């Protein structure tokens, strides 16, 4: 009897060759030396979740301390470390690396039809530096000398005179260390988005997700150096004896504030703009409709970061600035409202005119819109300078920025986790627990943050480790603490659901949502090489362009644009996306880890004032870079 051999799928031999070219090194060594953007994205994902947990524990301890007046859960010194580390952790070690490092890394090459980032080894370096900087700063907590002057460390409080221990030195060095990772990531995204798109993907055919990440990356690129300059000044003042901030010798405490907020305000847009990108991916998928007013939204995403560079002194309205300066910054703050309102109504109208399916990801986006609008409306109130001067540095402000950060950054992150879970893991998630987790988190966060508006207006200032009874603050604080624990329950349910789904839920095929962008055209999870052929792209919603997908299948069958001669990917011209050249990408490399370790040694030596050894470690870094650059990508 003849053996029946099933017919091979068209193009199978090309796929096999790609599989061999792109096979990753097995085992732990494979993960340590990986340059694959998907693996790096996953590394970021788990690491940032650990920091999210730490930041959350810090928050819940604070909420417990504040649940009733005159509590003694923690000492004032510990409380100061807690609120400082909570802010630092959530901003620098959770939101930024989760959105850019995890979501950005994993999805941008997939969405632009590329096989990897433009500089894969540098991508790995970003992750290892991020991890090292997080460990560096958290060492301070375990040694009882964590930063304790807030996440913004105003001087003179943060100067050597008033904060003599190593706490603020951990802060300065840790922040500079971390900003190297974020700067490298920002540069990576900018070059990748401009040079590594699939040929034919001109900028107006690029998904809005990528516009959002481009805006955030440009923001990071221009904001982080200002923070670095500021922390360099503080480090020098504290350790060498310079006088940048010392009014007795010509310095100025307000210099710190200006430089900090020139970084700090763009930073808050950088926190939420990638989340806008997540929203603009989820809404089309769950309404089966192209997003309303695409060009307005794309421009708005870039504009909000750009205008955001001009509003910084609205954080300083209580410092006694001249009226004319304050009015200028209030006017700029007024302008920055418009790009956000454009986006809110574009999202809403897309949901109204499309056919909305309220699965868990879209629920989180609806929740995000509600929270973002609430936080944004109180933000608009701050352009009224007298009102800002009344409520700045109170719990009203805490309410505002938590509605924005938790609502406009964390909700989309949670929604995005559900949305892309099938793509990354190859499994669906359980829908019912997903919806329940959303509702619990929604109720919890509103109970946690809404009363803060009221208690701030009733006079409760921020960063207080306790408060007296009899001022009418107690009931609100207690309610907030309850809300915090409810939020915890919801978050635990969310992650529990994802973990159980990973092991028990049904398998997902490559396109469970009929999503709009290119990641849905490849397998779940994607192969190492992402796409077997360089995809044909004629719109920002390629997975809905059936003709182009048909063309790709034909290309694969004939072996056209498979690029299997090596570890290859195309490069294009920045604006029109014309095919420019084919470049070879590097394979695994040990040098990113080694360089991150060497840098960690530099910063550790600086911390313990061994400056000469720090210099020697710097030379070690240069030698590592030499070794790194010795092997060129094609070798």
């Amino acid at each position: 009897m003849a053996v029946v051999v099933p017919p091979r799928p068209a193009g199978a031999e090309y796929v096999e060759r790609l599989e061999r070219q792109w096979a990753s090194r097995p085992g732990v060594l494979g993960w340590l030396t990986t340059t694959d953007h998907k693996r790096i994205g996953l590394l970021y994902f788990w690491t940032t979740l650990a920091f999210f947990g730490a930041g959350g524990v810090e928050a819940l301890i604070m909420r417990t301390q504040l649940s009733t007046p005159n509590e003694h859960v923690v000492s004032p010194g510990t409380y100061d470390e807690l609120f400082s580390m909570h802010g630092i952790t959530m901003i620098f070690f959770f939101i930024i690396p989760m959105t850019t490092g995890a979501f950005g890394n994993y999805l941008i090459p997939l969405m632009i039809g590329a096989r990897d980032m433009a500089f894969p080894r540098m991508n790995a370096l970003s992750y290892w530096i991020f991890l090292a900087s997080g460990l560096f700063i958290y060492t301070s907590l375990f040694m009882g000398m964590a930063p304790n002057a807030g996440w913004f460390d105003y001087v003179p409080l943060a100067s050597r005179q008033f904060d003599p221990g190593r706490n603020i030195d951990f802060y300065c060095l840790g922040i500079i260390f971390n900003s190297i990772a974020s700067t490298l990531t920002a540069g990576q995204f900018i070059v990748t988005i401009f040079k590594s798109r699939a040929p034919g993907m001109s900028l107006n055919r690029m998904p809005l997700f990528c516009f959002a990440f481009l805006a955030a990356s440009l923001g990071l690129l221009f904001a982080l150096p200002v923070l670095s300059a500021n922390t360099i000044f503080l480090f020098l003042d504290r350790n060498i004896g310079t006088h940048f901030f010392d009014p007795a010798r010509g310095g100025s405490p307000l210099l710190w504030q200006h430089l900090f907020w020139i970084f700090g305000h763009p930073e808050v847009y950088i926190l939420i703009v990638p989340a806008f990108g997540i929203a603009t991916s989820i809404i089309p998928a769950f309404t089966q409709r192209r997003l309303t007013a695409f060009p307005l939204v794309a421009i708005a995403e870039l504009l909000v970061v750009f205008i955001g560079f001009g509003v910084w002194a609205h954080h300083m309205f209580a410092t006694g600035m001249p009226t004319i300066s304050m009015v200028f910054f209030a006017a700029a703050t007024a302008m920055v409202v418009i790009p956000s309102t454009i986006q809110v109504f574009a999202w809403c109208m897309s949901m109204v005119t499309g056919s909305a399916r309220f699965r868990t990801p879209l629920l989180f986006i609806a929740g995000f819109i509600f929270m973002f609008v609430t936080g944004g409306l109180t933000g608009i109130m701050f352009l009224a300078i007298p009102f800002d001067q009344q409520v700045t540095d109170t719990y009203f402000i805490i309410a505002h920025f938590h509605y924005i950060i938790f609502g406009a950054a964390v909700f989309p992150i949670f929604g995005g986790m559900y949305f892309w879970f099938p793509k990354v893991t190859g499994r669906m998630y359980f829908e019912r627990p997903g919806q329940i987790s959303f509702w619990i988190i929604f109720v919890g966060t509103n109970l946690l943050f809404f009363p803060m508006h009221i208690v701030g207006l009733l006079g409760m200032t921020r960063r207080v480790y306790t408060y007296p009874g009899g001022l009418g603050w107690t009931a609100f604080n207690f309610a907030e603490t309850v809300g915090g624990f409810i939020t915890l329950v919801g978050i635990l349910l969310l992650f529990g659901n994802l973990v159980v789904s990973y092991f028990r839920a049904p398998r997902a095929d490559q396109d469970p949502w009929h999503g709009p962008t290119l990641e849905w055209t490849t397998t779940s999870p994607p192969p190492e090489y992402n796409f077997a052929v360089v995809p044909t792209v004629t719109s920002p919603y390629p997975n809905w362009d059936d003709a182009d997908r048909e063309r790709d299948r034909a290309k694969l069958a004939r072996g056209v644009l498979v690029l299997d001669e090596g570890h290859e990917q195309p490069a294009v011209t920045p604006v029109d996306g014309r095919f420019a050249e084919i470049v070879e990408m590097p394979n695994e490399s040990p040098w990113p880890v080694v360089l991150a370790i060497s840098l960690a040694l530099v910063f550790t030596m600086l911390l313990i004032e061994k400056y000469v050894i720090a210099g020697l470690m710097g030379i070690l870094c240069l030698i590592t870079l030499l070794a790194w650059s010795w092997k060129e990508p094609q070798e």
Partner: protein
Amino acid sequence: MTGRAARRTGPLIFLLAAVLLLAGCGNGQNALAPASHQSRDIADLFWWMMGGAWIGLAIVVALLFWSWKRRNRRGLGSDRAGEKPGERASWYVVVAAGIAMPIVVVATLFVISDIFVIQTTQAPASAATKLTVQVIGHQWWWEIRYPGTRAVTANEIHIPARTPVRVEVRGADVIHSFWVPELNRKIDAIPGRTNSIVLDADEAGRYRGQCAEFCGLQHAHMGFYVFADPPARFRSWLAHEATPAAPPSSALERTGQRLFMGGACSSCHTIRGTNAQGYVGPDLTHVADRTTLAALTLSNRRSDLAGWIGNAQHYKPGNQMPDLNLTASGRQALVAYLEGLR
């Protein structure tokens, strides 16, 4: 479920907020219980803005609710994936509600608050006030001086009611922030510069304030009172406050004074009319007249005063007052002496 639940919880939150807000009325530190022209302007601004905010939120919630009602349905026109049903109408909404309406609202708010209201809350012109008070923020207490007199006190400010008073604020060590919400907005106390603000209480009363810029370990315990007195009472208070300390009138008080001058106390605290001259801690010349101790941390009753002197670190850990290693009788004498400093 989204829109419906949100519509139900929205007004509920508002109602709850209003009820609980009124519960906090009378705490002396309530930005929405204004006691001056300045705070009233700010509070009015807030009520209008909040009204506008609820309307804005309601519009967005209505849109979300509408999208929920239309869920799983065919769109306005074609329902093929990737189409843009109702695109023209959507553009109109985006431009009208997302560009035009915000521009109008924001511009109006800007003009009203930053051209008009701001004129009442900004630093006063020098001719506008007849009395100046200097406030210097320390870690973690407030030094109060009345230039032109010898009056120096701490953590309590007296001003004549219905009189615009200029308060000049600066920081002695780190940045603090002077905030008494029922009378005006906050102004930072920064080392190396002097900021000004006006206090003009509508009526006599006691108003509570607190440091509003994180200034270290005991930032949470850096409150102060502003007493607006009828002008005659204020004048007599000021005159009395300028006088030197009353001499001790009993043997116990004399013992207390000896302990004070001979021990660590006199190196940190000033008592005018004696040899005690220190600037680390507050001026104690008329300490018995004050309503609280340690910047509103404790009352000024005998038991609290004794507790404070015996173990200041217990009540305000990290503050600059060390353990004085007093015997019980020593403490008793000191308490007697300090209570005599009216």
